[in-house]
């Protein structure tokens, strides 16, 4: 009996076979890969419309294969609203960082979610302004050091890290709101499933879907990639607890 090798996995079609612009071990890169896998599994390569933010989170533009539109800082949900209303059959998703979504773009995300716009927002929360060199973000943890909180974030000065998934889930309109962490194989597989579900619900016209992905920034956190994954388990995930926060398909 002869033996041969059959390929059972290779990178998804929607990311081109070139090196990404992200730092080694950056989970933006892993997030982009699983979004591409979800798009591919749903056969939506030609139909997907990717709205880019400002930040490292926009570096997907260097290797994403498909239609993209770049929005001004924080305005991706407004751009997505316009595109989805004009092209309701397209699979529209915005990929936004925490500075982009939870600071400068807070009004846009809350308003789009509150209107129940029929698109998906994927929110990459790495607790920092990665691209500009690691300043404090609204999601920086208490005690976490950044270039603007050199002794660690203090509640007295900066308040508490903002829990976007919980806030969006409190609104009446959103259809699906969940948070996943990308620092373990289990978390990655659950996140891919969650993204796929959000995309399917959008294609079925079920309304606004929101996926928060806990990610890292080894470069600005000043850690090796592996250490940053451990930091997430020990710190990030204790405050930003993964889970499904709203799902209109459950008990419906």
């Amino acid at each position: 009996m002869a033996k041969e090798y059959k390929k059972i996995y290779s990178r998804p079609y929607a990311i081109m076979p070139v090196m990404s612009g992200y730092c080694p071990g950056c989970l933006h890169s892993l997030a982009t890969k699983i979004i591409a896998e979800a798009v591919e599994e749903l056969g939506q390569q030609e139909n997907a419309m990717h709205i880019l933010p400002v930040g490292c989170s926009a570096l997907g533009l260097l290797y994403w294969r498909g239609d993209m539109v770049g929005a001004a800082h924080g305005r991706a949900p407004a751009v997505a609203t316009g595109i989805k209303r004009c092209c309701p059959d397209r699979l529209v998703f915005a990929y936004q960082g925490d500075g982009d979504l939870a600071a400068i773009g807070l009004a846009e995300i809350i308003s789009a979610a509150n209107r129940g716009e029929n698109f998906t927002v994927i929110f990459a929360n790495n607790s920092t302004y990665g691209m500009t060199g690691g300043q404090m973000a609204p999601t920086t943890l208490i005690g976490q050091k950044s270039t603007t909180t050199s002794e660690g974030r203090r509640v007295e000065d900066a308040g508490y890290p903002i829990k976007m998934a919980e806030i969006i889930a409190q609104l009446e309109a959103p259809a699906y709101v969940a948070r996943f962490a990308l620092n373990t194989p289990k978390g990655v597989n659950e996140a891919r499933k969650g993204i796929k579900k959000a995309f399917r619900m959008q294609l079925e016209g079920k309304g606004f879907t929101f996926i928060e992905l806990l990610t890292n920034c080894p470069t600005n956190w000043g850690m090796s990639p592996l250490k940053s994954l451990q930091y997430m388990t020990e710190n990030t995930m204790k405050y930003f607890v993964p889970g499904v926060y709203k799902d209109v398909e459950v008990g419906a």
Partner: protein
Amino acid sequence: MKIEINSNLCKGCEFCIAFCPKKVLKMQSERGPKGYFIPYLTDNDGCTSCGICATMCPDGAIEVFKEVETDG
């Protein structure tokens, strides 16, 4: 081999090495074409083609193969 790592895509983050349940991945001692250290499979028979390394690879640098029997 049951896995292939594209040395033009890999950035040497070590996630695949850390998460491989069979511990059959190791870093090469020489740098690859882009200046990063690239892992290699130390034991092809020990690899179960589980794909966990590929799941965790941020850069989609890993392809996974399964050994199948063919007639002839």
